[in-house]
């Protein structure tokens, strides 16, 4: 092994899969071998059986759909408002100076701690779920986008000025395209966080969604279902992450060059 030396794609994928195999093997060994009681941790086979019954008998696909909808809804809402605000803050220093202290403070407010308050304000309906995700992602997004845009290369801005660009042209043709790949990368990251918020929101005061299924299973001590639910979340996260990455690579091929 040499530091930073790239490896062949096939080897990379094989190594990645290998970890999952090792992980499942240890899990199987611990459960089938009787090291861990079935009450606390279901074995892999039970988990798969419970998963199938979830889909076939309990309409789990609808729960998944609802959860995905909440994540996407809350996240899109946050992104639509946060990205323009972040760009304005990064571009214009006075705007940044006005919002930055408050946003820096607000992003440390834990979204999950707002859930009781939001239930009071918005009930236990969809709006409350969206708001939890919104609060969790909005402030993070604003700050990260502002930093990205604010760190634009001044030499490129100056070059654009000497080529005749005016202020609007600088924003549209230098700051935005330069920041776009990093903003997309930030969106990908924060979408991952939104997944954790939605489950927390569904654990409390909800009648549908993956999180709700997990609380129900807990009451029945059905660890197989709980683990299956967690794995489903992980798989969906992985798939959305992959799609985001693929889209970024397609949209910003220049950013991958070294």
């Amino acid at each position, binding site marked *: 092994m040499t530091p930073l030396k790239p490896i062949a794609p096939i080897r990379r994928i094989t190594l990645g899969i290998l970890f999952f195999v090792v992980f499942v093997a240890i899990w199987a060994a611990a459960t089938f071998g009787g090291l861990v009681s079935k009450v606390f941790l279901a074995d892999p086979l039970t988990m798969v059986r419970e998963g199938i019954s979830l889909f076939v008998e309990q309409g789990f696909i609808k729960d998944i759909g609802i959860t995905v909808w909440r994540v996407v809804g809350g996240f899109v809402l946050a992104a639509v408002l946060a990205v323009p605000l972040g760009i304005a803050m990064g571009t214009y220093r006075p705007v940044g100076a006005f919002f930055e202290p408050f946003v820096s403070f607000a992003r440390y407010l834990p979204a999950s701690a707002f859930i009781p308050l939001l239930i009071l304000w918005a009930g236990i309906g969809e709006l409350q779920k969206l708001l939890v995700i919104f609060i969790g992602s909005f402030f993070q997004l604003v700050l990260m986008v502002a930093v990205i845009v604010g760190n634009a290369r001044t030499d490129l801005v*100056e*070059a654009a000025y*000497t*080529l*005749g*660009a005016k202020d609007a*042209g600088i924003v549209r043709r230098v700051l935005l395209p*330069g920041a776009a790949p990093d903003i997309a990368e930030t969106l990908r990251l924060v979408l991952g966080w939104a997944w954790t918020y939605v489950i927390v929101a569904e654990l409390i005061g909800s009648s549908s969604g993956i999180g709700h299924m997990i609380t129900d299973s807990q009451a029945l001590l059905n660890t197989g279902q709980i683990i299956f639910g967690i794995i489903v979340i992980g798989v969906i996260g992985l798939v959305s992450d992959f799609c985001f990455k693929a889209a970024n690579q397609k949209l*910003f091929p220049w*950013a991958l060059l070294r």
Partner: protein
Amino acid sequence: MGVVAVSAARDPSASAQLSVLQVGRVFPAPRGRGTIEALQPIDLAVERNDFITILGPSGCGKSTLLRIIAGLDTPTTGRVLLEGRPITGPGPDRGMVFQSYTLFPWLTVRENICFGLREKGMALPEQQERAAFFIDRVGLNGFEQHYPKQLSGGMQQRTALARALANDPQILLLDEPFGALDNQTRVLMQELLLGIWEADRKTVLFVTHDIDESIFMANRVIVFTARPGRIKTELAIDLPHPRHYTVKTTPRFAEYKGELTEAIRGEVLQTMARERQPPADSGG
């Protein structure tokens, strides 16, 4: 008498395309109190179609002067006139190529060259035609669709040159554009630039600290002193055009080189002597 002489120096002949009038620049020191005088008030008149090189040791304020002319920095004293009108900010009438690579990484070679043209609102077919012309001029045929990161340093600077030229500025400001290139490439770039200048004689102000480079392309070499920068001497270069690289082996060239080496040596020694001591000019 004395008054006449001074005013003549401050009001260069009306034919000058670019007049630098008593331009000085004082920076606040990076930390603590005090100031750094980068440029002492200088006068400079640049005629139309001239090729002037500015030669000086590192840190003497060459970039500062060029940035002021480009409108990217404001002088502490004095002003700059282009065609008689004072410069208030950057504009497409002064094209600039920077020492660092400043191509837009998200645009291809062709799109980079079209940047200023699009800003002007030129129709796309016309943009493409102009870009093709200048791509050919700097010898980048076949690289139109490449991104800057896919190019060598020399190719990036050629693209930057084409980008500045395509905008058809009145004057070209070049701040050590070949400074980061290896010697072989640099010499080829000098010939390329000189060839372009010989073809359409656009006014050029070229900053360098390489003596050969300053003589080879210039009609006039202006030597700066060590910081604070000031014009130490000027040397008219009377070598015939078109110039071939073999001119560098002629006795005439060697003579110029000897003269400039002597002039710049004293300045470099002074800079080094000062760097061994804490800065003496801060606190003013």
